[in-house]
């Protein structure tokens, strides 16, 4: 399972083309699911519309559990897109991994820390942006010295810790899941007997990975809302 990443340099930036491909695939899938489900909107929802409305209500529930709807309503789009994008990304690496010329092309984009940390930094930057926007720079700054001034270094560290844990938790779970899937599939190379023996844990682990992928998407969205609420809410 030691695959190289297909890295190419373009305009002075390094592109992992596998990531670029998988991000695009994820985005297209999410877009297709969402748009196809909302093509035939009706007052009496059925099928996919029902499912998507359930997702909307689910994210609404997450937001409502962390802040009041007046401030939280604007994050609904963000939460929905995050949840579906991360879930789809997590699922992509499960059925198979495609390696071409010893370069790993098909995998979960979220099995790359660059991607997850990008999302995490985006969320944290957004939380700071909305913190300043909704509460004003003064009250936003005052938050760093609560409950008393000695907390300032801790609060600073907290910001970076939040970012790191948010991104690396997702990356770790998905990456570990894919590594173990790769190892179990790799059993087949050791012999036919080991391969057959490996099928059962493989099935179990794939099922578990679906669960983990869903849970991680939920946790990422939940924590996003918690961090946002932490910055924009008046009391907590």
């Amino acid at each position, binding site marked *: 399972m030691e695959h190289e990443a297909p890295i190419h340099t*373009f305009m002075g930036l390094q592109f*992992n083309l596998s990531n670029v491909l998988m991000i695009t695939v994820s*985005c297209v899938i*999410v877009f297709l699911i*969402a748009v196809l489900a909302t093509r035939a909107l009706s007052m009496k929802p059925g099928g996919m519309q029902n499912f998507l409305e359930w997702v909307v209500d689910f994210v609404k529930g997450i937001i409502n559990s962390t802040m009041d709807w007046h401030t939280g309503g604007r994050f*609904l789009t963000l939460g929905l*897109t995050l949840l579906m994008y991360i879930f789809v990304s997590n699922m992509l690496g499960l059925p198979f991994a495609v390696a071409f010329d010893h370069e790993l092309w098909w995998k979960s984009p979220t099995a790359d820390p660059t991607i997850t940390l990008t999302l995490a930094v985006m969320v944290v930057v957004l939380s700071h942006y909305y913190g300043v926007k909704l509460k004003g720079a003064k009250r936003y700054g005052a938050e760093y010295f609560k409950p008393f001034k000695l907390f300032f270094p801790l609060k600073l560290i907290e910001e970076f810790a939040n970012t790191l844990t948010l991104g690396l938790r997702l990356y770790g779970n998905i990456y570990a899941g894919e590594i173990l899937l790769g190892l179990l599939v790799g059993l087949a190379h050791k012999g036919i007997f080991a391969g057959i023996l490996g099928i059962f844990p493989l099935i179990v682990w794939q099922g578990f990975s679906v669960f983990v992928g869903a849970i991680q998407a939920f946790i990422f969205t939940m924590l996003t809302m918690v961090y946002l609420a932490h910055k924009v809410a008046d009391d907590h």
Partner: protein
Amino acid sequence: MQSLMLGAATGVNGGDILFQLLAFIILMLLLRKYAWGPLMGIMKERQNFITNEIEAAETSRKEADKHLAAQIEELKQAREEARAIIENAKKQGEAQGESIIKASRVEAERVKESALADIASEREKAVATLRKEVASLSVMIASKVIAKELDERSQEKLIQDYLQEAGEAR
């Protein structure tokens, strides 16, 4: 594996970061326009619809209650009216009966009185007639007696005869 580690020899994949950011933001904007917007619109619409329906149902229920109360009131009134009419009719009937009885009583009294009066006048008339006849008879008898100048016996006999005659004539 190198690219999977932060700060690896190949460096950070700046391109990936940019691409991920752009892709996510574009995805979010596209979804907002083509999926979440319409979806939330219809959810809102449904919410409004349900609210309106509930309100309408409440209004019509209130109206129905009002109508029911009015109906009950009307029914009560009609019943009251009917009772009053019946009572009136009864009273009227009673009064009419009484007046009829009274009138007939008066009529009977009148009839009886007139009958009595008739009887009395008839009797008086009869008595008057009788009297007149008796007088004329007496005159006749007297004139015959005077005219004949008979002896006492024949006179007696004559008187007896006349008397008998008168009595028979009577």
